[in-house]
């Protein structure tokens, strides 16, 4: 009986201690960091022991997949948790929502205070995306642009040059898919929501956009309709057989790296999946080029896909900032960029060491994309997930060979009422 009593006391005590351990007004030596599964995360985890040694802090790390991370934030931040100090988030997807809800601490003073760390060194597009109502709420960590991945061997066999316009791309995809029955001419994401970000570059290159200057839906403009029709046709006619309408990048990348497609448009930050012989059967034959130009030129997106922020409710904000400063320092960005993750710092891109490990044609493609790039790859609204599904609808209709014009009109109508609702 006494043993049972002791056990109960211990259990209760333990639980209470665990409950109390996270809170308290005092800054803790334990820093709770939540990160997404990403190549960047893998590199930073390798370096965390150095940070712990330098600062004497202990990093308590939580690592989650993208969807789980998003669901976790929704639950925990909604409940006002102080159990997260540093949070990795997607500025374009959740940035507005989180900032508006007051989940992200204002970092404006902190970024200005350390001249050595140099805030002005960060590219302006990514900085815009992590700024909300003139306040800095996040620090960009990973940037990406859409580029064309292609198979050098297939192009050579077909006697083709690397396509520079979307028309040439379509002709090349058609020729290769006709000449090689087992190989698709073109592959890209097909899932209603995942495809939107990659489609955005096509949309801009055709001269369209998601929202016009007055803040109204622009997805039924003639330019947008052409872009929808083009993207859908490329996959419907020259894409893999039995193409699924649920593909995000892992599925599309798998088709490309297993030799199933000649051309593939995707974010440059994923290039190692295609060039690493361990993952890719076509590693020796992969080439990179800027996104081919449409009627409005080559206008790929150029965005920060991830950033680091501090939870407004955290009691450990000073230490959290130490971590962010360290993780986004020039040295760390250079190190991680060399390992294949494109960073947000101008000085690192200007440094030959920063691009030495990249394929030459990829560096050229990234440079040209950074010049003409557009700073967003999805509608800039608060409820991004719903907006993506609305504007993604004509894509899947096109991919399955349906009536894209009608779908774009219907999507525009829903998108307009969505925008009106959000403006209220």
């Amino acid at each position: 009986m006494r043993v049972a009593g002791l056990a109960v006391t211990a259990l209760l005590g333990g639980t209470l201690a665990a409950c109390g351990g996270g809170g308290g007004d005092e800054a803790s030596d334990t820093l709770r960091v939540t990160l997404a599964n990403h190549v960047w995360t893998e590199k930073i985890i390798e370096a965390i022991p150095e940070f712990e040694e330098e600062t004497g802090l202990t990093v308590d790390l939580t690592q989650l997949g993208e969807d789980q991370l998003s669901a976790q934030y929704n639950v925990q931040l909604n409940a006002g948790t102080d159990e997260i100090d540093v949070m990795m988030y997607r500025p374009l997807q959740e940035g507005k929502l989180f900032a508006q809800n007051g989940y992200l601490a204002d970092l404006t003073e902190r970024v200005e205070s350390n001249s050595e760390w140099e805030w002005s060194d960060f590219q302006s597009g990514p900085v815009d995306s992590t700024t909300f109502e003139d306040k800095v709420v996040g620090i960009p960590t990973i940037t990406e642009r859409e580029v064309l991945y292609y198979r050098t061997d297939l192009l050579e066999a077909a006697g083709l040059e690397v396509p520079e316009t979307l028309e040439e791309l379509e002709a090349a995809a058609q020729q290769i898919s006709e000449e090689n029955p087992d190989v698709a001419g073109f592959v890209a994401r097909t899932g209603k929501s995942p495809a939107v970000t990659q489609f955005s570059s096509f949309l801009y290159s055709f001269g369209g956009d998601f929202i016009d200057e007055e803040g109204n839906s622009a997805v039924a403009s003639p330019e947008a309709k052409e872009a929808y029709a083009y993207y859908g046709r490329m996959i419907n006619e020259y894409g893999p057989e039995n193409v699924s309408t649920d593909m995000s990048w892992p599925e599309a990348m798998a088709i490309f790296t297993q030799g199933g497609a000649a051309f593939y448009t995707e974010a440059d930050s994923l290039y190692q999946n295609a060039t690493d012989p361990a993952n890719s059967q076509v590693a020796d034959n992969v080439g990179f080029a800027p996104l081919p130009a449409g009627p409005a030129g080559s206008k790929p997106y150029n965005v920060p896909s991830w950033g680091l922020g501090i939870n407004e409710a955290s009691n450990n904000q000073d230490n959290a900032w130490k971590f962010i400063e360290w993780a986004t320092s020039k040295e760390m960005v250079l190190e991680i960029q060399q390992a294949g993750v494109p960073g947000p710092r101008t000085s690192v891109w200007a440094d030959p060491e920063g691009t030495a490990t990249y394929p030459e044609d990829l560096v050229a493609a990234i440079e040209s994309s950074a010049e003409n790039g557009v700073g967003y790859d999805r509608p800039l609204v608060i409820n991004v997930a719903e907006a993506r599904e609305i504007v993604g609808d004509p894509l899947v209709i096109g991919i399955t060979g349906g009536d894209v014009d009608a779908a774009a009109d219907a999507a525009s109508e829903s998108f307009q009422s969505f925008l009106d609702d959000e403006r209220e």
Partner: protein
Amino acid sequence: MTVASPPRTNPPKDRRPGNTRYKTYSDWANNHRKWLFAAPAMIFVGILIIFPLGWTMYLSLTDSSGSVRAESDFIGFANYAEVLADTDRFWPAVGRTFAFTSVALAVQMILGMCIALLLWRPFKGEKWVRVAILLPLVATPVAVGMMWRLIFDPNIGFANQVLAFVGIPAQPWLSGQSTALPTVIFIDIWQWTPMVVIILLAGLTSLSEEPDEAARIDGANAWQRFRYVTVPLLMPTIIVAVLLRSIDALKTFDLLYATKGRGGGSFNEVETLNIYAYGLSFDYNDYGLSSTVLIIFFLIIIAAMWVLTRRRKDV
């Protein structure tokens, strides 16, 4: 479970039955013992079931979105009106929920009964067969979903390779608009039929032999004995299996999310009420609308269970 009686000890001095304070407590405890014993369970139910349900009901009457801590307005039954008039997502999701449940349940019951009858009489290697049949049951639905997603991949999947081997053209399986729902139903059947088998087998082995023997002596054939003797005797067990499986199938989430992701696919082809409500909450941050869908879903489940349990009483 056996309940050991407490060791008899002499009551401490001040707690002798004669002590009025002790007597009052003890009488009070005796008079209220049904409440005292039930209290832990009631507190548990209150905190973990009634409070969340009440909160969800409250949210369903507000326009809460973005953050549940953000200010929201009380809008009465406006969400209910919106949801019930939604023929794009809500009603198709209701249809899919019932299609999924009824087809999966019917096949599982028939298949489960056949397998249980086969396993009923002892045979050589019976143990191995039982283990093999139970295997799908011990895997987590998310892992099962991912495994089948690979098998049914339209380009590199095993399923289409087998079809190609026997000369049948590749099928879209999970990726087709019209084939996705039947495919996830198939996966559910694969995973949960063993559960029906276990329940029915337990029922069958507890049946007494006499009625069957009597029918045999009266000249009934195998089908007649099954139809008029075994099934009626087994009915209570069958109803239990139907109840358990239908509740489970109605609220299936993990399998659908693991195979088709958010929204049940690009055309919402496997979007059931659960997936729809999850999307409203976690993708759209529309807590008011999501709570409304959940409350309606809750009422639907209560109604379905009420119908089924009434049937059980009739038996």
